[in-house]
């Protein structure tokens, strides 16, 4: 239904503008929802600029409602609103209001779970049930996170503003993290179907807006590139039977060429800027993976070396080890993993299993696959691991 799709695209933009006008998220949401209810009644076909209609209507209804209320908050909001009466109403393709709102939703004073839920609700326009389904968490939990976050914003006085340049080094990373986690959850869902397309689409859309709003922030470009280059491979990720297909085995003709081209272009822009950062490097790695017929593992290993200096985490060591195996052989890679500890992370066990299998050490490989299978929470991934395990012959001497 057309209104539903307009709601999805316009909600975040309109709420963001109303937050600026009213200075309060709840009031802003109520106003926008009111306006959409009116749209449902009044629109025979949507107007040419639905967003502007919604904002105007929301503002007028908010003024009416505030006039009728006498609480201090209402008076304050009314004053704010009337003061901004003369400002031109712009609901352009991308607005500072949205940027303000993203940074508010991703404020470090809010709990990480709350940041994601709030961003999806306010900027993504997703309803609470949709968010709950995406994270496979009860609706009441998501609802509570959002309520608490809004309350914290109000009670603690978290301001609605884009951080100043000198604050960005601290404030931008949480925004990028929220978008990355959102995409990641969509791409490799914790449980249930492996891929939740709407989360991926939403993350990319917001990452794109971030780039439009901050075209000089290389990590923002890097994140968008990373998401696009990963998303581009999605059509090849599952076989027609719904089984997981790893990168080396994927049908490359199924990859989305437009997204790959855009991703590569963004990576080139980042390289020219020469201000490397973790997202840019991860994007570059994915650019190499999606470049041409073969895979330049030497270049990938070099990029992982660079990533490791910026992000010396066990997960990076693990991912780098995969590249080490391609360049220096599985034994060298296993040695790299000897000291890595990632309790509960099935991909560590799965990687070890694969390396051991390549060395013909089937007994040890089987044990590692068993470990991975026990830890995997996603059914599709688990089925894949079971298939791999079944190919082994654990009677073979190590």
């Amino acid at each position: 239904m057309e209104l539903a799709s307009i709601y999805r695209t316009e909600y975040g933009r309109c709420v963001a503008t109303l937050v600026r006008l009213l200075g309060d998220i709840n009031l802003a949401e109520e106003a926008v929802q009111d306006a959409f209810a009116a749209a449902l009644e009044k629109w025979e076909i949507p107007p040419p600029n639905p967003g502007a209609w919604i904002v105007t209507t929301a503002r007028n209804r908010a003024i009416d409602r505030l006039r009728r209320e006498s609480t201090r908050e209402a008076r304050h909001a009314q004053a704010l609103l009337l003061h901004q009466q003369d400002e031109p109403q712009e609901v352009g393709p991308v607005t500072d209001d949205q940027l303000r709102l993203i940074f508010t939703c991703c404020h470090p004073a809010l709990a990480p779970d709350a940041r994601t839920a709030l961003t999806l609700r306010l900027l993504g326009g997703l309803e609470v049930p949709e968010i709950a389904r995406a994270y496979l968490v009860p609706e009441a939990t998501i609802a509570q996170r959002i309520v608490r976050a809004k309350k914290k914003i109000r009670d603690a006085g978290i301001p609605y503003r884009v951080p100043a340049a000198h604050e960005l080094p601290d404030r931008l990373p949480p925004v990028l993290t929220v978008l990355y986690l959102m995409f990641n959850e969509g791409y490799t869902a914790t449980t249930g179907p492996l891929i939740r397309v709407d989360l991926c689409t939403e993350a990319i859309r917001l990452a794109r807006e971030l780039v439009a709003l901050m075209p000089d922030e290389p990590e923002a470009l890097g994140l968008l590139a990373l998401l696009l280059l990963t998303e581009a491979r999605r059509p090849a990720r599952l076989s027609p039977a719904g089984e997981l297909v790893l990168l080396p085995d994927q049908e490359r003709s199924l990859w989305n060429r437009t997204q790959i081209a855009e991703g590569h272009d963004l990576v080139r822009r980042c390289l020219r800027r020469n201000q490397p950062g973790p997202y840019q490097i991860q994007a570059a790695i994915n650019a190499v993976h999606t470049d041409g017929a073969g895979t330049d593992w030497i270049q990938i290993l070099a990029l992982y070396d660079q990533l490791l200096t910026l992000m010396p985490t066990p997960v990076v060591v693990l991912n780098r080890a995969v590249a080490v195996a391609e360049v220096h052989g599985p034994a060298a890679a296993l040695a790299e993993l000897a000291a890595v500890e990632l309790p509960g992370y099935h991909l560590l066990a799965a990687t070890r299993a694969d390396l051991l299998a390549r060395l013909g050490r089937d007994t040890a490989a089987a044990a590692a696959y068993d470990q991975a299978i026990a830890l995997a929470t996603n059914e599709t991934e688990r089925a894949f691991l079971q298939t791999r395990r079944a190919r082994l012959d654990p009677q073979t001497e190590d």
Partner: protein
Amino acid sequence: MKQYLLAVHSVEGAPTRSDEDTQIAYGRVDKINNELQATGAWVFGGGLLPPDSATVVRVENGKTTMTDGPFAETKEQLGGFWVVQCADLDEALAWAEKCAEACMEPVEVRPFQG
């Protein structure tokens, strides 16, 4: 303008600071106090004597009891605090960062009611 409590928490049993470090901390705190006053953010502030010096007063059913020692029987104790007035949380957090660095201890930022 909102008012915020910036509470410095010390951990009991943590290695006692050297005299030199304590002097450094005092110096930094002095500097912050001057800045707070100069910018108009200062409302009140001070360091507290250790928890041993505390007394807890309770009134239950019209009866008053007094106990020696701090209220919270935890390892973390309140070491001192500031009350600041700021436009928003970001300003309060910026002060808290300076305070936490100066005191070399975590600082909790809590908004006042109203």
